[in-house]
């Protein structure tokens, strides 16, 4: 897929909660094609200590409204400066980067998308994309409490939403891998993105139940285009770049 360096315009900056913002970006020209799982590299302005671009997942693309959504968790100065962007500000991105998820062959496959924290970001676009292509899917979202479950309404408009919270304030109490659905239904495909311990637990479940499973990794990156070899993960084929061979990997390929 052709990659672009684009200056997009902030159409809206939605404060989701204390730690998260949703940036809705647009452009005068039509946005290029982007696939679920892919990400962008954001240039952060006015942050002297943010030298490199910041990788952020494509949260959603609305081609009709010509919108690109980025869900940003504030963890350091780079993401803080992103969260302070105002309507009509311009933001420089490289996009689209990385690979995409592998869709199942059969449209009636039982598909589960498992996300935790900011890792739910790419799953919204994946869910929407699956639905558009005639695949029904369910979401299993995990968080510390209900406040940490993001974009619930958006997920509910696409498919069934199951949830776990550590304090029991929404859905079942516990971690995603403890959700009862995993004992009731044998899924054909599981896609997951979130904190590494969560993804590892999901991968373990998938291996145990012999389920097709892809995970989306978040390694630190410099170039995002396969030029610097800084972002590698260890696989059955040796060190490969997460920014080009990933971020989406089949668990069979990872040395987990």
């Amino acid at each position, binding site marked *: 897929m*052709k*990659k*672009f*360096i684009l200056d997009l315009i902030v159409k809206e900056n939605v404060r989701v909660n204390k730690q998260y913002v949703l940036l809705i970006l647009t452009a005068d020209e039509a946005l290029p094609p982007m696939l679920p799982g892919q990400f962008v590299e954001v*240039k952060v302005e006015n942050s*002297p*200590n*943010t*030298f*490199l*671009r910041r990788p952020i997942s494509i949260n959603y693309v609305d081609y009709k409204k010509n919108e690109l959504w980025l869900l940003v968790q504030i963890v350091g100065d780079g993401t803080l400066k992103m969260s302070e962007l105002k309507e009509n500000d311009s933001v420089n991105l*490289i996009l689209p980067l990385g690979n995409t998820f592998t869709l199942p062959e059969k449209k009636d496959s039982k598909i589960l998308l498992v996300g935790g924290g900011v890792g739910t970001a790419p799953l919204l676009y994946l869910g929407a994309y699956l639905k558009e292509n005639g695949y029904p899917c369910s979401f299993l979202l995990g968080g510390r409490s209900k406040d940490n479950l993001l974009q619930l309404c958006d997920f509910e408009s696409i498919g069934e939403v199951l949830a776990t919270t550590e304090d029991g304030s929404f859905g079942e109490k516990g971690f995603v891998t403890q959700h009862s659905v995993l004992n009731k239904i044998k899924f054909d495909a599981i896609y997951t993105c979130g904190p590494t311990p969560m993804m590892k637990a999901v991968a373990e479940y998938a291996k145990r139940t012999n389920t097709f499973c892809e995970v989306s990794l978040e*390694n*630190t*990156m*410099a*170039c*995002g*285009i*396969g*030029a*610097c*070899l*800084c*972002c*590698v*993960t*260890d696989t059955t084929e*040796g*060190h490969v770049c997460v920014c080009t061979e990933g971020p989406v990997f089949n668990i069979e390929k990872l040395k987990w």
Partner: protein
Amino acid sequence: MANLNINIGDLQLKNPVMTASGTFGYGTEYSDFMDISRIGGIIVKGTTLRERQGNPYPRLAETPSGMLNAVGLQNKGVDYFVNNIYPTIKDVDTNVIVNVSGSEVSDYVATAEKLNGLDKIPAIELNISCPNVKEGGMAFGTSCVSAVQVVGAVRKVYKKTLIVKLSPNVTDITEIARAVEAEGADSVSLINTLLGMAIDAKRRKPVLSTITGGLSGPAVKPVALRMVWQVAKAVKVPVIGLGGIMTATDAIEFMLAGASAIQIGTANFIDPAVCVKVIEGIESYLNDNNFSSVKDIIGALEV
């Protein structure tokens, strides 16, 4: 319109802008962003005799105005380059130059011999300055004796333009520059990364898997500029300057300090189209200041 042509040994560059090894892949990674054939020279990834997996993750630490890397020369080896990569890049209409690394003199020699036969590779850059591999690498570039050994041995088998890339992690870089010049190097390029370190205080752990790594980006520019200035005065062969170049102005500063050409490294990560912007910026500078050739600004610093 000013003339941008520069010669480095037998190597003819359409302009003095090259890409720094390890930061530009094999060039094609950047072709969505600009016409890469406009670049004077593309120096591809560090290549070794045998495949190397490089160092474990994490390999990157961001620093104020720069970054530390500990990639450790991950590459598939020279035979893979010759058979699989060379065919895909040989028709790019610019100079494609291979950066060669090794852990023993015989590795460098064997790799250089294999590259000598490739028509469309007009030059190699000998990396005797990588701070990220234990055995050898930088060790060759930090003593005159070993630098002389490796450059002398490669010069015997490599017939085309031989550039030697110097390490800044030395007491006196001019000594090494003179030593490799005497062994027949056609040019020296400098600087490779500066040995550095990053610590995660919260976890009380080093950030990089290798504890130390190589610093690059604007943070190293003043050091690089000083070293280019010193080396340009010490040797007769053309000097290629690099280290922290982000803009055309940075590039011009290196040329004023004595560099005949420059390389752009880390800046490619921030702006993947930076190379053509630097070329255009140098051209405007020459036109605005009534220089008819880029050669007129080499070492033109008034002191």
